[in-house]
């Protein structure tokens, strides 16, 4: 793995956005060859989305030939509920960029047959040629997407009942009323994300530090599902200083020492403007 440590939330969001930008621009997507991106929701990626929107507005990045697949969606929450992941993606990302609506895929938590919806999603990913870069976050309990502790590390897209920790963490988006938080969700499996050609996990804040420690310094364990990515050939963990608080000093020093190498991935920064001219 690459462990990229930046000083704070803003800088780590920017690094991640630059990396995504470079990957898309260098791929040079077109109508015959789309770039496929897996996308997360939640508090962590907001800064990254903001930077990506800036890059679109400045003309350096276009999402016209990008297909996206979101990781998850609540079950039973109306699609236009302000806390649904459809609303989140629309307000925080899609409405600000030039992605074609047909290329933005999000699981439908109100589908009549949830299992069929999950299977169809897997097929759509396959039809799109698989995911090129899957971006994810980590829960305080070490989950990726809604793959709660105990989820199979080879799981596929399916319906999951949320763990208490997750419901508590989400309560702040529902006026701190636990009764209003959805208890089930559709989620990509650990196996689904592992199939991506590249994975980037964003981890910021001290409250995620223990999960990061469990994910990268202890063994692969289905109780901390992000640990599965120890067995993925191309994973980058992008984090801020606070998220490293539970790591061994040796680990942190080693990876900080590699920053000059990591930074070559974002500098020089590529632009679609240059390509067009």
């Amino acid at each position, binding site marked *: 793995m690459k462990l990229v440590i930046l000083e704070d939330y803003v800088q780590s969001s920017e690094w991640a956005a630059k990396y995504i930008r470079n990957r898309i621009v260098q791929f040079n997507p077109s109508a015959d060859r789309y770039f496929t991106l897996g996308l997360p929701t939640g508090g962590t990626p907001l800064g990254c989305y903001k930077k990506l929107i800036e890059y679109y507005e400045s003309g350096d990045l276009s999402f016209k030939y990008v297909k996206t697949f979101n990781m998850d969606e609540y079950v039973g929450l109306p699609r*236009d509920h302000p806390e649904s992941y*459809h609303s989140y993606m629309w307000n925080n990302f899609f409405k600000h960029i030039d992605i*074609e*609506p047909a290329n933005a895929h999000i699981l439908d938590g109100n589908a009549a047959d949830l299992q069929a919806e999950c299977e169809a999603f897997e097929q759509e990913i396959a039809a799109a040629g698989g995911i090129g870069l899957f971006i994810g976050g980590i829960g305080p309990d070490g989950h990726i997407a809604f793959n709660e502790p105990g989820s199979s590390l080879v799981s596929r897209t399916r319906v999951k009942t949320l763990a208490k920790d997750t419901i508590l963490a989400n309560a702040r988006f529902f006026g701190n009323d636990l009764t209003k938080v959805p208890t089930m969700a559709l989620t990509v499996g650990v196996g689904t994300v592992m199939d991506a050609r590249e994975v980037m996990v964003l981890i910021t804040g001290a409250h995620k530090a223990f999960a990061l420690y469990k994910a990268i310094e202890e063994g692969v364990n289905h109780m901390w599902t992000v640990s599965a990515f120890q067995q993925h050939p191309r994973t980058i963990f992008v984090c801020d200083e606070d998220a490293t608080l539970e790591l061994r000093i040796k680990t942190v020093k080693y990876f900080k020492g590699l920053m000059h190498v990591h930074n070559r991935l974002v500098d020089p920064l590529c632009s679609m403007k240059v390509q067009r001219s």
Partner: protein
Amino acid sequence: MPSNKSVSEEPITQFVNCRILKDHQLQREDLWVREGKILNPEKLFFDEEGYADHQVDCESKILAPGFIDVQINGGYGVDFSQGCDVRGGVALVSKRLLEHGVTSFCPTLVTSPPHIYHKVLPEMEVHDGGAEGAGVLGVHLEGPFISREKRGAHPEHCLRSFQQGSLTDLLEVYGSLDNVSIVTLAPELPGSPTVIQELVKMGVTVSLGHSVADLSQAEQAVQQGATFITHLFNAMLPFHHRDPGIVGLLTSDQLPPNCTVFYGMIADGIHTNPAALRIAHRAHPSGTNTLCGSIATMDMCVRHFRKASGCSVEAALEAASLHPAQLLGISQHKGTLDYGSDADFVLLDDSLHVKATYIGGEEVWRK
């Protein structure tokens, strides 16, 4: 980029680079229009997988709901109460009103003899606005059931009182109430409570004005269903600390629950002193409706009201759009930029000068 045609073939226009008045605040959001109505872009994106056919750059201007004028007696050489060339007069005024950001209005008739009402009313049909001019929401009948002492410029010999205390009195004078949205009357006239009730039942807005009513008569009228005060302060008893009269309705505790009393104020700097505007607005901000004055246009009054009362831009704009729509019970589709509303709006610069007017999403006037 063509829109997905799963719901409608009609083109979609996206107004970008603007600050729209939404949820009582100016927000940096795009406005989407299809078939003359404001479209929900999120539904368009997810349900229809659609997007805009054209984009209009609003150059960072303010995009506010079109102004609604509920009391206008004429203008540009036209007097609605004269009775000659009614259709031509309404057409001329409705066209010129577009320059001042008014997209819907209520042509107002002052106290007149019955033959004028019988002639004029059938020719002032309710109709939607468009390139030809602002929409007519319905006629505002200001009189003749008003107070002699407070008639102002209304002709004395045409004043009437209620003989039967019922709709018959009105129908005798007006002929028909078909195209009527608002009736202004003086509630102290005997027989008025039942008249008010019957008008409200018909869906006509009842307004109090040109009156010497005391506060309790005014409160009674509101309990019967009156919801508007015609040009507050003008043509009514002045505020008195032991009997505030009609003005006291702004803070009365005798009103039915969930009932808002709206009031029009002529914010032209002449009919009301700025301090009076401020007192009224501070006492009851959610009821303020901007009215234009004799030569002051609606947009001038919006600017003047904002300056005089020190209120926010949002409040000044709502006093000329949302509140009149709420008064007339049409805020489901007029006076707001909510999804599903009619796409009647104005583009304004930061000092609230009208730069362009749109009705049903089509540009009907540009500076």
